[in-house]
Structure formats: C-alpha cells, structure tokens
C-alpha cells in the first residue's frame, strides 16, 4: 500500500471522509442542517474534483491506472460512473431536506448514509477484483436498506426496508455462492485473471457444469440488484415504501451501480463467455421491459408506477448490454448513456413527487397530481418534461438514450433487432401510464384544495440541474457521447 495506491484511491477515501465529516459536524452541531449540508456539498464537490483529477492522470498517462496489486482500477469508465454517482448523491441530498424536515428526520445522518452508499458504488466502478466488487456491492446496498427504512416510524417505510433487506440479503448470498464457484474454478479473484482463464477455457467446449452453475448464481444475484424480471419483486414495495427522496435515489443509484457491477463482472471478467450468458440477458431484457410496462399500466400510485417503470427501464438498458455482448461496442455506450439520462430524469420526477409530498400525509396517488398545473405550474411543467423524457419523446435525454440503445440493437441484428422492436412497442405502451400523470396534472380538476407549498432553494436548484441535463442530454448529446464512448472503450 504505497503512496501511489493512496493517490489513486483518493476519491474513495475522500468519500468516506465526507461521510465521517458529516457525522462529526452533526455531532458538534446536532440537528442543524446548514453546516451538515455545507459539508456534504463541499465534500462531494471535492470528491468530484478528485475523481476528475485521478481520472485525468489515468487518461492522460495510460489507458488505466491500477492500484493495490491490480485490485483497484481507474479508467475512463470509472471516472464517468463516479461522476455520475456523485451527481446522483448531490441531487438526492438536494431534494431530501424539505421532505425530511417536515417528518422530523435528521438530515445529517441521511447525508452520511447516502454518501456511504455512494462510496460503495464508486468502489464497484473501480474494482478490478471480484472481492472488492462484492464488498463494493455490499457497501452500496447496506446503507440503501437503511435509507429505505429511514422513516422508521412509518409502517410503509420499514415494511419496504425489511422486504428490501431480506430479499437483498438472499440475493447477496446467491451472488456470493456463484462468486465462490467462479473463484474456485478459475483460481483467482482478479477480474483480468478470471477473464484470462475463461478466455482459455472458452475454446475447449463444453464448459464444466460448475461454471454454468456459477454463472447462474451470479446472474441471478445481479439480476436481482438491477431488478430484472423475475427477480424484481422487491422493487415496487421498496420504492413505494421508502421516503420519496430515497425512492428517487434507489431507483437510480443502486441501479446504475448494479449495472456498473454487470459491466465489471460480466463484460470484463466473464466477457469470454459472452456468447453463453447473452442468451439469458436477452430473455431477461424481454421479460423485464414487458412485465414492467404491463404492470405499470395498472398502477394508481405514482411512486409504485415509477417503480414498475424503473423495471422496464432496466429492460431497455439490458437491450443495450445484450447488443454489446453481441459484438456492438455501441451497446455499452448506449447503456451508459441511458444510465446517465435515466438517472437525471428519474431523479427529477421523484424530486417533484417529493416536493408535492412535502406536507405530511400527502399520498403519491394519482389524485395528488390532479390539477397540479393550477396549483404549482412550475412543478407540473417540470414533471411533464421528466415524464416525456421517460417516455422517450425527443428532444429529451430519455429519447436519446433509447435511440442509442435501439441503434445498437439494430446494429447487432438478428434476435436483437426483434428485441429492438419489442422495446419500442413497450415504449409506446409506457407512454400510456406516463401520460396518465400528465392527464391528471393538466386535464383533471383538483379533488381537494391543497394550498400551494413553498419549496426550498435547494430543491429548485436540484430541479434546475436535472432539467437542464435532461434537455441538454437530449438536444446536444455530442459531449456526453464522447464521454461514454471513452468510458466504453475502457472495456473494449
């Protein structure tokens, strides 16, 4: 563990230190949100800077920088994902205080736990070792359970949390079992090593049944984390139960993190077996987007509806991944683009819901949205934008994400082209439930007269960022394309 290693690890360390600092500030000035938030945003900014700096040195020097005997890697993918995670954290924390304070929940601990979670996600994106990967995963999801149950006096929140936790642990065990098998068969935890060994054995077919079993367990575990059907059961309940800002985070942070895991594990370590697992990925993609959309059609609770919709979005992202596995580099680029776009638009949508639910007792049912354009026109218009983006209407980020993923699928051809058609049909069906919210906001009269609320500057600032990104990523995707292109090249 030399100086070089520490420097390379700096963003991760800084993240942990930020979490610790928040806790410390809260200890010094208990219950005061301003200092805690200041530390949080300052710290996250620092982390972002460090991410860029380490990423810079990685990119300018070699293609990647490794540390800790090759267990930790910084390449362009890491940089891209880390920045995304930091943004997700910052936005989530921006949206949370209004909501939490009304419920008398502490802001500082929320921020600290969230930053812990982000540190896990960042670790995933930088792991070059299966063990680190697993630990990063745990570090990402454990605080997630806490966040889900953050409103601990609320029955829904704790119910969601325990469901999330139990099933999450179950899947972790499954994942771990698979990991053990793969390790046992390849003899190394190094991702590059695993890939090397598998590259050799992949030619000597048939592969051993143990490897198949390991793949099955790994796939199941990962499919659970990204909420792919039929391993998605936790998603609706956990999303609906969680405090709304948390739902926003859960729907993007762990999801993108899990996709980072997929990239590192399946694309890198298990890449040589891509032809084997891709069949499964394609089936998963098809079932996931279809079931997610179909069930979302029938939901009356917007949070739950968005939960199912997030399942559907997983399906679209899987399409991109399957395209990559079928030999189209653009598939991975599409997946990354989609991830970024999805993160901002979905966070934005949940931020609007959270803002509406600021007042205690306001449900996330569709009726809450009735006549929103009259009560809070700005929120209604922003929500419309995010929903249109989720639908995939140009010129929004969501559209370009879909465009990219589908392009990759079309390029790959064959069954993936069929998958592309299925994806767009799904997108059309999805329009129904997204637009349903718009219907309520614009076309229904409010059922009850709710006085309009005031929202904190942080919320507006966060919404502004999400809005700008949602539009910019849709209208001027050029810069982002360069970035995801570079990130995807890290995998090759």
């Amino acid at each position, binding site marked *: 563990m030399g100086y070089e290693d520490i420097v390379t690890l700096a963003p991760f360390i800084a993240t942990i230190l930020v979490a610790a600092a928040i806790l410390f500030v809260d200890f010094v000035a208990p219950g005061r949100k301003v200092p805690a938030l200041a530390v949080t945003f300052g710290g996250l900014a620092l982390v972002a800077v460090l991410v860029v700096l380490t990423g810079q040195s990685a990119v300018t020097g070699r293609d990647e920088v490794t540390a800790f005997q090759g267990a930790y890697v910084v390449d362009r993918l890491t940089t891209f994902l880390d920045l995304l995670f930091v943004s997700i954290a910052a936005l989530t924390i921006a949206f949370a205080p209004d909501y939490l304070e009304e419920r008398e929940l502490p802001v500082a601990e929320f921020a600290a736990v969230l930053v812990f979670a982000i540190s896990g996600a960042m670790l995933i994106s930088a792991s070059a070792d299966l063990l680190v990967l697993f630990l990063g995963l745990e570090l990402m999801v454990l605080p997630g359970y806490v966040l889900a149950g953050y409103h601990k006096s609320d029955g829904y929140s704790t119910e969601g949390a*325990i*469901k999330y936790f*139990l*099933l999450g642990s*179950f*899947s972790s065990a*499954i994942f771990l079992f698979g990991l053990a098998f793969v390790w046992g068969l390849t003899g190394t935890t190094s991702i590059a090593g695993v890939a090397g060994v598998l590259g050799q054995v992949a030619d000597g*077919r*048939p*592969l*051993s*049944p143990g*490897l*198949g*079993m390991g*793949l*099955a*367990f790994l*796939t*199941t575990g990962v*499919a*659970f984390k990204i909420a792919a059907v*039929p*391993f998605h*059961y*936790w998603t*609706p*309940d956990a999303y609906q139960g969680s405090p709304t800002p948390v739902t926003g985070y859960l729907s993007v942070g762990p999801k993108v993190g899990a996709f980072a895991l997929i990239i590192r594990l399946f694309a890198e370590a298990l890449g040589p077996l891509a032809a*084997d*697992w891709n*069949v*499964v990925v394609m089936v998963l993609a098809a079932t996931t987007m279809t*079931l997610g*959309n*179909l*069930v*979302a*059609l*029938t*939901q009356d609770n917007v949070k739950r509806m968005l939960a199912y919709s997030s399942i559907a979005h997983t399906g679209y992202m899987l399409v991109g991944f399957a395209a990559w596995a079928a030999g189209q580099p653009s598939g991975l680029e599409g997946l990354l683009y989609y991830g970024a776009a999805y993160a901002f638009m979905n966070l934005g949508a949940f931020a609007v819901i959270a803002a509406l639910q600021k007042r205690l007792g306001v449900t996330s049912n569709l009726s809450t949205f009735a006549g929103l354009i009259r009560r809070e026109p700005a929120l209604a218009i922003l929500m419309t934008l995010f929903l249109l983006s989720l639908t995939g209407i140009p010129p929004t980020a969501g559209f370009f994400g879909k465009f990219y993923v589908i392009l990759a699928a079309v390029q790959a051809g064959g069954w993936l082209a069929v998958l592309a058609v299925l994806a767009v049909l799904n997108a059309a*069906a999805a329009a*129904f439930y997204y637009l349903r919210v718009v219907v309520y906001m614009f076309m229904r009269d409010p059922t009850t007269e709710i006085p309009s609320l005031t929202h904190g500057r942080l919320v507006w600032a966060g919404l502004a960022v999400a809005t700008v990104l949602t539009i910019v990523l849709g209208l001027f995707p050029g810069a982002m394309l360069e970035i995801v292109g570079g990130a995807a090249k890290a995998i090759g």
Partner: protein
Amino acid sequence: MHLLPITLLAAAEGSEAVAADPGIYATLIPLIIALPLAGFVFTTFFGRRLQASFGRNVAAAVPLGVVIASWVVAMVVVSAVLQHQGPFPEHGPGLDLTLWTWIPAGVDPATGRELTVDFGFHVDALTAVLLIVVTTIGLLVHLYSVGYMAHDPGTWRFFAYLNLFMVSMLLLVLAGNWLLVFAGWELVGLSSYSLIGFWYQKRSAALAAKKAFIVNRVGDVGFALGIMAIWVNTGTLDIQASLARLIETPAAELTVPLWIVALLVFAGAMGKSAQFPLHVWLPDAMEGPTPVSALIHAATMVNAGVYLVARANPLFAHAQDAMVVVAAIGIFTAILAASIAFTQTDIKRVLAYSTLSQLGYMFAALGVGAFIAAIFHLMTHGFFKGLLFLGSGSVIHAVHEEQDMNRMGALWRKIPITHWTMLVGTIAIAGIPPLAGFFSKDEILGEAFKFGFTWVWAIGLLVAAMTAFYMWRLMGKTFYGESRVDPHVEPKVHESAWTMTVPLVLLAIPSALLGLALTWGGPPLNPEGTGLLKGWLEPVFEEAELYLHGEAHAYELFGIDGILILASVAVATLGLVAGIALFGFFRARGLRATADRIAGGTRVTRFLYRASLNKWWFDELNDLLFIRIGGRVAAFLWWFDRTIVDGTVNGVGALTRDAGGGLRRIQTGRVQNYALGIAIGLIVMAGSFLVIVSR
C-alpha cells in the same frame, strides 16, 4: 415564383389550318360569360344591402342588366359565327380561345400523354345555336323573374343564383375542352341546386335540391370516367383534338374501347338531361320557383346532355352499339314520361314529365344519328317549353301559388294573355303545323324511320299522340270547364304584371314561328334546299352523318317524307281531339266522367292508371335501394367501424391492461412468495445455464 401569365392566346393546336386571328372576338366571347359572372359576384356581395336600402327592383337591376348585355354580345358573336364573318370561315373548325392554362399538369413521360388543360373556349355553329337558346331564354326568364319574385324577400339572392346559372351554362356551352365542360356541367348542378332549393325552409324544396344534385352526380361519375378514358386514349383533353384522335386511332390501339367511352359520356348526359333511370330528379325539381323550372328544366340545363352527345358526335358515330343504347333509352324515356304525365295533377309536374318525354325524343334522334334534328328539337322545345313553364308560373301566380290543376279551371278569361300564349305553346308541342314543334318532331320521326329505326319511329308516333292528349288535358283542366278555384282566391285572380307577360309574348313568337324560320329555304317548303339550321350545323355533323348514313337522300315531299309528315300530323291531331273531347275547349265542357271511367275500367287500365299516378314507383324503388338498403349498409359499416375496427384497437389496449392487471397479482406483498419466485427463477436459470454451457 411565377404567377401564370393570364394572356389571351389563339391556340393553334390541333388544327392544320392557319389559326384565324380572333380579333375583337377574343374580347367578346369571354365577355359573354364575364358579364353574368360580374353580376353574380356583385349581387352576392352587395345585393343584400342594395335590396335593403333601395328595394328589390334595384337589387335586380344589375343581374338583369348584365344578362341583357350578355345577350347582346352573344348575338353579335352568334351572327358572326352563323354568317361566317371574321375568324369564322365557312369551312373552319371554329375558333379556339385560350384565356390561361388552367391545369398545367405536364406530360406523363411513360406514355407521352399530356395533361395541360386550358381555360379556353371553342366557338362554332353548334355553340352559336346553343348560345341563342341559352342567352335568349335566360334573358326572358330574368325579366320574368323581376315580376314573379317581386314579393319574395330573397330577390337579390335569386338573381345572384340566376346569374350564376347563366355563367355555368355558358361555360358549359363555350368550353373548349372536356374538363371545362365538366366544370360548367358541375356548376350547372350547383346553381340548379341553389335554385331548386331556393325556398330552403320548405323541406320538400331542400330535399328536391339535394336529390337533383346527387342524381346528377351519378351521371357525372360516368362523364368523369369518360373524360379520363378520353384522356387515356388520346393524351389530350381538348375536345376537337381528342375527338379527331379517337376516330383516327385504330380500335386495337385504344386503351379503352370506344363504345365504353361513348356510354360513359352518355351516362353524364343521362344525368343532366334526366333520362331513364336518372329521370327521377326532374319532377321533384319543380319545387323551385317557376322561372327556375322554365330556365333550368325546360330550356337550358336539361339540354346540356343533348348538347354533350351532339358535341361528341364523331365519337358516337364510331360507336354504333352505343348509339343504339342512346336511342333506346331516349325513346323509352319518352314513352315512360308521357305515360306518367297522363295522370299528374300538379301543373308543373305535367310539364316536367312532358319535358322528360321531349328530351327522350331528342336522345332518340341522337341515337338514330339525326343530330341536327335533335338540336332542332332542342331549340324549338326550349322556346315552347319555356313558354309553357312561364305560363304555368303566371297561372300559379294568379291563383295564389296553387299548383294543383284540380283547383283551377275556367281561367282563360281571367288571365287571357297567359291563356293565349300557353295555347300557342300547347299546339306547338303537340306537333300541329305550322307551329315550331311540328317541324322538329317530324324531322326526328322521319329521320328515325329513314335510318331504319322503325321501332323508334313507331314508339315516337305513339308518344306524339300521347303528348297532344296530355297537353290538352292540362289546358282543359286549367283554363276551361268549370272553375274549381278556391272561392277566397277566385275574386282576386288577375293577369300578371308586364314583366311576366312580355316574356310570355316574346316566347310565344318563336314557339310559333321558329320551326318555319329555321327550315326556311329547306324542306318541306323547299325540298331542294337545305334549310337555315341545317346550313348552320352541317359542318359540325357532316363527317359523322356521312360515316353513318352515307350520302343524304333527296327530300321527297310527295314520297316517303310526305307520308311520314301525314302520319305524325295525324297522330298529333288524334291526341288533340281526344283531349278536347275529354277536357273541353273554351266554354265547351269535356267528358271528364268518361276519362274517369276509362281510368277505373278494367283491371289493366286500373293498373296502368295507378302506375302512371305513382310514376311507375321509381321513387319508391329508389327509396328502398338507396335510403333503406343503403342506409342499412352505411349503418352497418359504422357499426363495423366502431365495433370491429375501433374495437380491435381498444381491444389491444384493454388486453394490454388486462395482462398488466393479471401480472400485478404475482406481487402478493409477501416476502416469502417473492423469495420463492426468486428461488424458482434461480433453478430455471441454473437449468438454462447448464444447458448452455454444455453446448
């Protein structure tokens, strides 16, 4: 961007001869149409205000004025054409004028067909003859309307419509290409729609207007297809050029056989001229004000079909199968309409059926190849039928808008001018020499016989007798016998204003003399000569008649022609005498009871009577076919649209939602169920992977 240059061009296309310099006629001919058009536009926009501010007569002044002006100009042109002055040489093809290129749709490079439709006119003798009829009768009807519509609040509107009608009809007659004919054709339909439905608050008028337009459209479909077929065959829509090409092109090279083209064009003619089975609109059209009936349904619009077939005479001459159809439908319509006219009691309806019958004559003439005779009859009929209609309008006016002849009678003394002029018209239509109808009708019958269509001739004779009879029935019931007029109205019956009677007199003169005038210098008075009308029209029909009949035979007043004259005069007289016997004459009372007895006599006569009274149930048949069955079909299709087509769409949506509703049930809310799902998923996954890796 180029605005199309609107210039006056003399089109040289299609004629080998050096194009004649149109000279002053380049201005005069468009003026014939432009004048009523200006009147129409002016009256449409300002008529209402004028009428409100200055009264009806002022509102009518402009429309009337432009029609007078148009008549003057038309007469100048007509005289030039018929006397071969200026650009109308003796053996010229007529004058072509192009105002602007209407539809520049270019050339189809695959076939070389060009679709460039000029907004242009073609003027020759046939046009001139029609111009005489249209402008003269049109002018008189305008004049008559000033008096007739004097009490209607919508006078200005009526005159606007009349002007529009003049525009349409003149366009139809003057048009130099098929599409422009069609345009006039349709505009005539529109203006007749407006005029028939003038009293639109009357439901029957509104229905009649609609019926007229739609039935006409049925024929128009044929005409439109005919135009398309002509274009496909010849690659041009210019009337003269396309006709020339049609007959020049060998039959094998034609895309659409000639007889089909001819029948399609004839279908259009059937609609406008109300030939069986498209005759149903004309009687209903009597719902319009009477001047309309005179203008449209006697003198001009219904003649359009005759004009069309005459205009297309080379086409028909070369498609003789089609000619037989024309003749058959014509003569059948003639007898059918005559049979219905026997029993109608509405004075205008009797005239309407009489019109149908006379139009049938004209088509029969066209069908046997007697084109000039058809046009001859067209002219004479235009005048005497116009006279009869206007007269009937005067009668109706006198008895306070009563049209039922059963509520008239003994009017001859109270409205003498009307009576005398109508008597002239009746004798003219009956075919009694020397009035106009005799000449034209005899010409038709004679030529039918001579050209070998004895069946046409035989039926025609029968119809002539019937015509004389039912016309006298009309006279008798209206003017003679005892008065059945409403006692409240009786004292107020009086002769109409001068604006109405003057046209009657002006029309009575040609009704009486036109036959003589037009045959002046020809048979039967001068068997050696050709006659005035024949001289005018010979160039137009020469080729076709030559092709059909070969060299014309000499006229034999004391041979076959004389016998034919005698026959037709005899049957006309017979019909007239029977009419007088049954329906009286001046003070003489008829034997009406006998008439009733005949009608109700045997089973056969009873049936015939009812059939005639019910117009052979054509309206009922149409009602069944198009309203009931057609309505059912439409209603079924709408049901199909909502239930099947839209139902499928909504069904897909519902199915999707139901699928979602079913799938959401797997989310039971119980963690263990979820875990079991995951476990089963894991097992399936393991199975799949074991299969996959062992490949």
